[in-house]
């Protein structure tokens, strides 16, 4: 209820005020996907307005795709964006770099893998797009100098790697895309349900001597991400 505002001193129609307050709450991330909104009756009693007003607001928003109304269950926020990713983001190092760079990221873990020669490090991060988890990244990097490794969320991990690798020239990648189901940890981080379908993308990054420098495992929530490619011959 706290996200919905009606100011009776304004000239804007009440139903428009309800609509605007819900849309802005969704856009700022206060109202999340699947959240149940108050019923029309609750709204009309709370604001002391006619039943028609919340009904018009909800119907309009449902038509515009912001809400889903289920008879007998309630009105729910439908806000999680669907991404259509062109397949070529994985097809060159530059595209991959620009893809993983600018997104909002939360670094979950940076650790040194014990008893490995050469030394290897693991970085785990969660990327967000518009308030929702977009993918989970788990990256294992070899041939790095740990002292030079400065992980911060605003920089691309591949850029960081380029700087921290020892005399390596990262040149190309090999990517495998597979199907899978989410483990409970992945589901928790990606805000989906365990056993929900996920896309698993494994990107192997090589240097110019065909030496494997890093493996990046990306996990996408399949209900919200699809890959696309256009072919011309």
């Amino acid at each position, binding site marked *: 209820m706290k996200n919905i505002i009606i100011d009776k001193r304004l000239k804007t129609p009440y139903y428009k005020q309800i609509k605007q307050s819900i849309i802005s709450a969704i856009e700022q991330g206060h109202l999340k996907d699947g959240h149940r909104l108050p019923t029309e009756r609750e709204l009309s009693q709370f604001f002391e307005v006619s039943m028609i007003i919340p009904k018009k607001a909800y119907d309009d928003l449902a038509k515009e795709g912001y809400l889903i109304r289920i008879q007998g269950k309630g009105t729910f926020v439908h806000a999680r964006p669907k991404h*259509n990713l062109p*397949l070529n983001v*994985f*097809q*060159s*190092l530059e595209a991959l770099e620009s893809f993983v760079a600018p997104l909002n990221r939360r670094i979950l873990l940076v650790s040194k893998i014990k008893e490995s020669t050469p030394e290897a490090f693991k970085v785990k991060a969660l990327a967000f797009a518009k308030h929702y988890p977009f993918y989970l990244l788990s990256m294992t990097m070899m041939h790095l100098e740990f002292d030079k490794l400065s992980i911060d969320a605003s920089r691309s991990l591949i850029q960081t790697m380029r700087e921290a690798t020892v005399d390596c020239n990262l*040149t*190309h*990648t*090999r*990517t*495998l*895309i*597979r*199907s*899978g*189901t989410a483990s409970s940890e992945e589901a928790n981080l990606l805000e989906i349900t365990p*056993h*929900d*379908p*996920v*896309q698993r993308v494994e990107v192997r990054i090589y240097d110019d001597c065909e030496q494997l420098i890093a493996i990046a495992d990306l996990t996408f929530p*399949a209900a919200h*991400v*699809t*890959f*696309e*490619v*256009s*072919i*011309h*011959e």
Partner: protein
Amino acid sequence: MSKLITLAIDRRRNESVMDQIRQAIKERMLDKTFIQNDYLPDTHELALANQLDEHEVIKAYQLLIKEGYIIKEAKGHKVARFNIEEKAINSLQSVTEMLKNEGFTPSTNVLEKAQVDLHHHPELKEFYDSTHPLLYIKTLYCGDERPLLYLETYVSLKDYPQIVESADLKAFIHQQRISAHRRIDVVKVTPDVAKALHLEMADAVMRVRNVYFGQFKQVLTVSFVHAAPNYSLLLDSQH
């Protein structure tokens, strides 16, 4: 040299121990613990290491042989060709061609051919208008006798009335198509798919939607491919 593995067998689950062994070994093939031409551990050793009855292991191996995942040789149980890494995602190559290139002996099996109504297929609305009668063809592609791809194709009968009589539909479509759009996602299996590809209902599989266009940008066919879990897409970046 075969690798000795520990299997997570849970006797409280309502799946039989034999099924759990079979499933666990398939998973080990998926995560590449066992790759093509590896030998699986000896049944006796595997049973001993995991405190199982050897008969259960033998039964599981026999089923895997029957399903085509492993081959019995004098030396032991060898892993058959298992993972499919499709490299043809950026080309208009046919499925049969792709399977051949991956080293499989392809075979096809038409499961169903029927005229359908668009009303039952809302996912096709963006390509055809609702008055179009459609021909629906369901095909199962096998490699080395093992089911690998489950393909459902829709063709408009209004634009291509000759297709019903056409003996070789594939050749007809193949010679006309000049571009395509592919969309790849991962979905839970439906009962039909599970049955055709020998999967459990809880599995998720890759689904590729292919839309083929002719020379005037008209839609030729729309198809949905469900791939077995051992299928993956391989993209190589240019140097």
